[in-house]
């Protein structure tokens, strides 16, 4: 296990460097001079430009810029934006919103997705099962921004059940956006649970358990469900990382001041350091979520051995 973890960590290194370098190169390939963009229409003295270019290493070759950035990064320094604000400060301000949003989405996935999947599997071919299948297919087909707008219009504007935008009402304002963000994964979770449980309910050990005279509740809860949840848990783990990156659209529609919105604004404003910083943080979250899931996989399913 320890050796496996070490090897995986080693494998992650090139992936991390490759991904961050890719994003670094792309961000700095965005046309236009960031310093000039910073000044806007006002005139800016050549010496100020020179100082700023020097401070942000803009005159170094790309690889050197990247290397300097990485040296800072391993010391926890994500750099500064062109207004002199620490990128870590910006992230500290923005991340809590996105994390709250992701948590709400995640809870929806577990609460609704799992229950719907289990119900559908236990009452296979019933009316409820069909309902779950049809609903999840429909959800998967509706792009997030269409779903977001529709629900905002219906539940926010017309019925006024939920706040239309912003986070002024605490956790309550995260309910609708959280549902929208989690909807797609919710549908996957429901289907995955259903498929997996249906398969396991047909297995030999379930038949054995039933033959031993165990109650239905115990057979399903203890034997079938536990094993069926392994793929679901792994999916949820990977999804937690993906939710953060997928929050751009949802945050835009509901005007939540999270990192998705920040990254979008920063790309527009050519704030390279902010974009690179946030994407790097997201890639880290994603990579470690994947690693955690891989390790968890072996804990959940003892049949899997890490050599």
């Amino acid at each position, binding site marked *: 296990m320890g050796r496996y973890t070490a090897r995986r960590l080693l494998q992650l290194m090139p992936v991390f460097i490759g991904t961050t370098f890719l994003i670094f190169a792309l961000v700095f390939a965005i046309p236009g001079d960031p310093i000039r963009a910073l000044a806007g229409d006002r005139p800016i003295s050549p010496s100020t430009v020179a100082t700023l270019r020097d401070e942000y290493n803009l005159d170094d070759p790309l690889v050197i810029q990247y290397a300097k950035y990485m040296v800072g990064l391993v010391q926890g320094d994500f750099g500064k934006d062109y207004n002199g604000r620490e990128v870590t400060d910006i992230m500290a301000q923005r991340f809590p919103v996105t994390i709250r949003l992701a948590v709400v989405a995640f809870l929806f996935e577990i609460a609704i997705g799992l229950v719907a999947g289990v119900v559908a599997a236990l009452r296979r071919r019933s009316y409820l099962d069909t309902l779950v299948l049809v609903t999840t*297919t429909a959800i998967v087909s509706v792009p997030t*921004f269409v779903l977001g707008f529709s629900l905002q219009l219906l539940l926010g504007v017309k019925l006024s059940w939920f706040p239309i935008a912003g986070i002024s009402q605490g956790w309550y304002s995260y309910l609708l956006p959280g549902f929208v963000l989690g909807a797609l994964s919710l549908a996957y979770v429901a289907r995955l649970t259903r498929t997996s449980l249906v398969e396991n309910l047909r297995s030999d050990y379930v038949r054995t358990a039933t033959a031993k005279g165990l109650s239905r509740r115990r057979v399903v809860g203890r034997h079938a469900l536990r094993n069926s949840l392994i793929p679901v848990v792994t999916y949820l783990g990977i999804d937690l990382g993906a939710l953060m990156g997928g929050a751009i659209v949802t945050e835009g529609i509901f005007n939540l001041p999270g990192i998705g919105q920040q990254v979008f604004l920063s*790309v527009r404003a050519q704030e390279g350091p902010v974009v690179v910083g946030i*994407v790097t943080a997201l890639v880290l979250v994603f990579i470690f979520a994947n690693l955690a899931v891989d390790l968890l996989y072996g804990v959940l399913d003892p049949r899997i051995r890490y050599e």
Partner: protein
Amino acid sequence: MSDTRKDARTDRVDTREVESRGAARDQSGTAGGEPVGELSGRSASLWADAWRELRRDRIFLAAAAVVTVFVVMAIAPILFTRTDPRACDLSRSLGRPSADSWFGYDLLGCDYYSQVVHGARVSVSIGVLVTLAALVIALVLGSLAGYYGGLVDAVIARLTDVVFGLPFILGAIVILTVFENRGLFQVTLVLAVLGWTTMTRLMRSSVISVRDSDYVLAARALGTSDLRILTRHILPNAIAPVIVYATIYVGIVIAAEATLSFLGVGLQLPAISWGLMISDAQYRIAEAPHLLLFPGLFLSLTVLSFILMGDALRDALDPKLR
């Protein structure tokens, strides 16, 4: 040893993705009910069998019909409407749907039905082009990685990981911002560059599962070249899961294009695209909900049809379900 573990992981991720997108099809219960005796005596290649299944699958037929309608709409919108989508009259601004104009008018007073119909071209062409490009990349890289293994596999696997690690929408936003002018070509390029990873992993594990079969060993023993083994023996037997995913992927790409156009980093006006239309409508949705409803409906219907087709194809290609 590290390789076997990696295989397990890749398989898990990939089947999960395809699985979870679909899983739905048991509902049509009767689909697999062909009597066994009838099968004997006929040519029973995988694809012939699948085609026989599909022809009697009502959901597949319905989805295929919808797709056909949208493809025709993309090629010849004139068959559906004679109104010019750019013939606008400000006095009709935000007009509600009526007998005159089924879908109402947009902010500039352009006929919305005509706009929505003309929007199909962009979605369908980007969906198909991106999928084809990603499919070609995936078939080449996946076959090489799966067949040769070792160093080739390791390099391709790391490359896949790097692109896969990039958050999709975020990566697309950053790359697309690099282009000053964004048209069909640029959007297609970016989506293809970001979108080949899952298919490559699928192809790789699929190739691995057939590369040691007897017929491959036989071909190799007869001195067949690697290229011929790959194209004539391995490809036809390994491609099925990738084709299934590619069908579903068309729908995913169409949704992604609309999302990017909606965010303002995809296609630009005056292009007509469903994503752009919804983006345009976003501040007027409360007063003119039809501006969201119709492009949203067409968009979702297109995505849905491709997903259902892929699901049906997967079930038809899976002999275990027969």
